[in-house]
């Protein structure tokens, strides 16, 4: 790798971290905004944050953040497969986080479909989707905190 390309890759990694962090922040903010909590717990009273209690705004924002998130994870997966697969392994914590993200994406996609006109799923499956979507987010959150504290990476260099 040339000096220039390694510099570019460092910038790439840094911006990827920022994109991931910001997208996650807005996904969680708008996601929890789907539950009627922000008004009750004064969050919407903070100057400039009144909009967080508008369900249509947070719903739209959740979609926007989900679009960026889907683009981002597809980029990262393809990047791994093309550029890092030969030299790096996915760690156990990477796989675990991957499973939770797959759950979030799958349940989220079903809920997006459900929001189109029509009766797409049974009532009990919709309840399951609502619970699963939040449940996977909580699991990802717990795993992410654990990984942050114990400095677990998504991938590691192959040995030998």
């Amino acid at each position: 790798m040339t000096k220039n390309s390694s510099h570019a890759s460092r910038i790439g990694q840094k911006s990827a971290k920022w994109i991931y962090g910001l997208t996650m922040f807005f996904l969680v903010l708008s996601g929890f905004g789907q539950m009627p909590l922000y008004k009750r717990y004064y969050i919407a009273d903070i100057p400039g944050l009144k909009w967080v209690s508008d369900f249509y705004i947070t719903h739209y924002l959740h979609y926007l953040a989900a679009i960026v998130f889907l683009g981002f994870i597809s980029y990262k997966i393809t990047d791994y497969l093309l550029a890092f697969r030969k030299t790096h392994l996915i760690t156990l914590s990477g796989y675990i986080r991957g499973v939770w993200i797959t759950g979030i994406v799958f349940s989220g996609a079903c809920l997006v479909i459900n929001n189109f006109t029509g009766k797409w799923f049974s009532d009990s499956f919709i309840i399951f989707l609502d619970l699963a979507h939040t449940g996977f987010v909580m699991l990802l959150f717990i795993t992410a905190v654990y990984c942050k504290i114990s400095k677990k990476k998504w991938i590691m260099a192959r040995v030998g």
Partner: protein
Amino acid sequence: MSKGLSRRSFLRGSMAAGAAIAASTIPGVVSARDDSTQLATLLDISKCIGCEACVEACEEVNGHKYPNPQKPFPKMFPPRVPVADWTDKKDVTDRLTPYNWLYIQRAIVDVNGEETEINIPRRCMHCVNPPCVKLCPFGSAQQQDNGLSRIDPDICMGGAKCKLVCPWKIPERQTGVGMYLDVLPSLAGNGAFYKCDRCYERVAQGELPACIEVCPEDVQTIGPRDEILKEAHTLAKEMNGYIYGKEENGGTNTFYVSPVPFDKLNASVDIGPGMPHLKPVKDTMADANNIAAAMVIAPLAGVAAAAGKFYKLTRTEDVSKGGTQNDKK
């Protein structure tokens, strides 16, 4: 069951259905093709005399589903969380409440130079794509294949999202009932929400909703949405009138037909809590649904960007190694 509420069936066999369709000018007689046929109601409000027989019938038939709260209510945190208690006001019929799912809204308007009272039975519109159902975070509000939407009070947390996203603010809360009592009664939730469920049990048995059945003026007609919409257009043409509910919120399963424009009615009726407006309503679910397609495009863009980066990187490395022989094009 009241005298007016017979067990007249409206879901007939195929032959009888044909006859019923043919006789669809007889108001109140309808046909339904099967359980998954989207049913709509037509309200000819020029006929409504405001007698409130429908309001009484609604209570008679649906009273067993009204809330039965436990008292005292659990103390809620923070203290500003509003208690909604209708138990001492069960008799209120001039607005929507958890104990009154239908009321008669009155307008005084000019019809052909004459001051006329127009009575408008108001209840849930049963939107075609109901935000109260689709955006409920717990799946407590549900839509049936036949187009009616209802809130299951046993699994409703009472957070009011259904009401806040409803363009007409139809659902009404009663504190002290519902699932929140078993979860975190002080910290989350606040009762359950109630609204017209279009008499779903009666409809499932092939009976008419009580308010339709009992009306002495045959104000309402129920049937397959496409047929009822056609009827609404014919009626509007006949009376040189107007339709409300066809376009509102992307389309509803309730069509009001009036000889007076709805903006005039809206200007005359009382509007406020439990008293819905008659304004035009944009499709509330459309904004987000319109960008949903980008969720399919985004992953493709992500793959293309990563592939592009990889291609560029390998090329740069080839060049830096002097390996340009493969890059003739």
